[in-house]
């Protein structure tokens, strides 16, 4: 029981991180119907920016943890969303109206580029951060096994939930959200009604990148080690989460993220940690066979 509870806590934390990345996939897919393969790399850049900001703050003497955390979060969101914007502007916008595979291939190229760009600039070896937020609660103890709920895990889940709530309000009740939903339905019509489609798409990439940056900060704090390759697997899993929840649906992405986090944690806890990625991937295949529109998604209608 205690062991189960511990895996549940770990799974929720992991799921929160995947959910944040999955939102970026699902939003971009909703609005322009492409899989943004470079999104995992954006998350990786978020992690690097947060690590760099931590050390830079340390160098100028900001050591009060809450202040440092807030500054790191803001800096990561700002710089990473600049990357998200640039990627869209450089690699995707010129390709609207090109043949079907073009944006996909361009996105893969971008993903390869960003990975090697970070590797060349920051070195290939693993980067580490000493623990910043320590301590936590001991929930229960049975038979020598104590269930730990660290402050960091609480922060991760709370920040994720808060961001998602704010974000849902934005989609539902602001002019930007309205423009996004309009573009999602019919881009030409939205443009005819005076919506700046290019700007709306850029903003979507900005927001997706900012959320991925938050995930990057969280993962840097949680694991304490990052390298230039972390975006690949995390991106895969977040994409699986988005498909599981129903691609295009934001609540679906969050739900999918938590489910994937749980599957990974429980698989690693009860079976073997070597094959936890295989398990997540198996879920993706099963979902695509039995419920391709996902848990909360609408079936896709093909138009001529």
């Amino acid at each position, binding site marked *: 029981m205690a062991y189960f509870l511990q895996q549940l806590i770990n799974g929720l934390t992991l799921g929160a991180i995947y959910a944040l990345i999955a939102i970026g996939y699902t939003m971009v897919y909703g609005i322009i119907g*492409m*899989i943004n393969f470079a999104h995992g790399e954006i998350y990786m*850049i978020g992690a*690097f920016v947060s*690590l*760099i*900001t931590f*050390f*830079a703050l*340390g160098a100028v003497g900001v050591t009060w943890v809450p202040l440092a955390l807030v500054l790191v979060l803001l*800096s990561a969101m700002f*710089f990473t969303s*600049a990357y998200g*914007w*640039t990627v869209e502007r*450089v*690699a995707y916008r*010129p*390709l609207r109206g*090109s*043949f*079907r*595979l*073009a*944006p*996909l*291939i*361009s996105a*893969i*190229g*971008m993903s*390869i*580029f*960003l*990975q*090697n*760009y*970070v590797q*060349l*600039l*920051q*070195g290939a*070896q693993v*980067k*580490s951060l000493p623990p910043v937020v320590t301590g936590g609660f001991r929930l229960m103890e049975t038979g020598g096994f104590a269930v730990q709920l660290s402050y960091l895990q609480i922060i991760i889940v709370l920040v994720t939930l808060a961001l998602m709530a704010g974000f849902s309000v934005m989609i539902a009740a602001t002019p930007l959200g309205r423009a996004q939903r309009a573009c999602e339905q019919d881009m030409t019509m939205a443009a005819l009604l005076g919506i700046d489609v290019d700007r709306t798409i850029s903003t979507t990439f900005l927001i997706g990148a900012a959320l991925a940056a938050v995930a990057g900060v969280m993962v840097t704090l949680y694991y304490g080690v990052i390298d230039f390759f972390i975006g690949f697997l995390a991106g*895969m899993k977040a*994409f*699986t989460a988005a*498909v599981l929840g129903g691609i295009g649906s934001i609540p679906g992405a969050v739900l999918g993220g938590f489910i994937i986090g749980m599957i990974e944690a429980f698989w690693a806890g009860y079976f073997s940690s*070597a*094959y936890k*990625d*295989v398990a997540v*991937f198996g879920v*993706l*295949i099963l979902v*695509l066979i039995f419920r*391709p529109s996902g848990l909360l998604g609408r079936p896709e209608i*093909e138009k*001529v």
Partner: protein
Amino acid sequence: MDLRGLVKEAALAAFVALIVAIPLAGFDLSQQGTANGAQIGFRPSWVAIAVVTVFVGRLVIGLLPRPQRRERPPVVSLFIARHQRVLGLTGLAIAIVWPYLPFSSDYLVDLATEVIIYMMLGWGLGVVVGLAGLLNLGYAAFYAVGAYTLALTSAYWAWGFWEALPLAGVTAAAVGILLALPVLRLRGDYLAIVTLGFGEIIRIILINWQSFTYGPNGINGVPRPTFFGLPLVARAPRGGETFAQFFHIDFSLSQRYIFLYFVTLALAIVVNLFILRLRRLPIGRAWEALREDEIASRALGINPVGVKLSAFAVGALLAGFAGVFFAARQSFVSPESFNFQESATVLAIVVLGGMGSQLGIALAAIILVTLPEFGRDFAQFRMLLFGAAMVGIMIWRPRGFFSLRTPSIRLGEDRPLVEVPK
């Protein structure tokens, strides 16, 4: 655009470059954990260089003449497209005499073998991506299936190269069918991500299933091809005869390199003819029709799942063959040879080669495989350039650098769908 507007635009681009460059170029974590011990370094000059480069670059791009909408393809592509047959035969002639040229060496023959293996991979993936329009991002996984089929059958049942070759192709194709079958009913993007995941999964399984695959250490002593049962080795294995003994010549290592080279070349020619034939068969036309317009093809009675599946299976089959050659060339396989970089390299060959043109892919394979041989410096930037090139080609030359991506057959004259007023 007037000059004022252009400068403004360039300044804006430079500003974005400043923001983007500050964290990753301006700060340096690469010294972390080394002897000098500094956790973080600063590189303000790198940021300045990035900003200036982007500003100047944007100005230059703006000052260049804007490409016309209906643009003539570049001269090189036109030349290659017109003289495909002659160029192909010339290339083949050079390939045949290659080991006997005066400057030829074991190293050059071996390098040419590698190039031809990548050509086969490129042609195989060209069928999937270029002809059928399906994106396979885990191509290295099928390559791995082929290579490991040879390595494992030789390790467990002492099979040789020639016995394992057909089995490797069939195994890879079967794996491809099993993987693609559930996904092909859906949008093409799903196939891309599933194959990407599959590429990673195969690697994880090869590393972790140590009792069967020998794990991360790989398998040594993979058999090389024999000449009708005569091995090309210095000493004959118990009672047998070697190639050199049978023909009463002295053994030298070059014989082995040259023999493998010709075997590879022979299979590459077969593969090439096979694909050329396929393109002219109804199935090949169905691939191209599906690529151009799925709904219209379906209305004309093409079964999309079956047709796509056949393309995917042919691609996997050819990857399986190429994998056997790869394993035999190195005489060694390990999981790390089949990472995502490998898949990306083959994809870059196909994209650069013009997505489906045999000759274009062959040229791209020659360039992309030999370039890293020119030096470590280049090898370091290789993947960075691949990535940038893939984006750039999609933007400026979606048809690839070396060829024209045209349908293999068309009805009547080639004329624009809409008359362009003069």
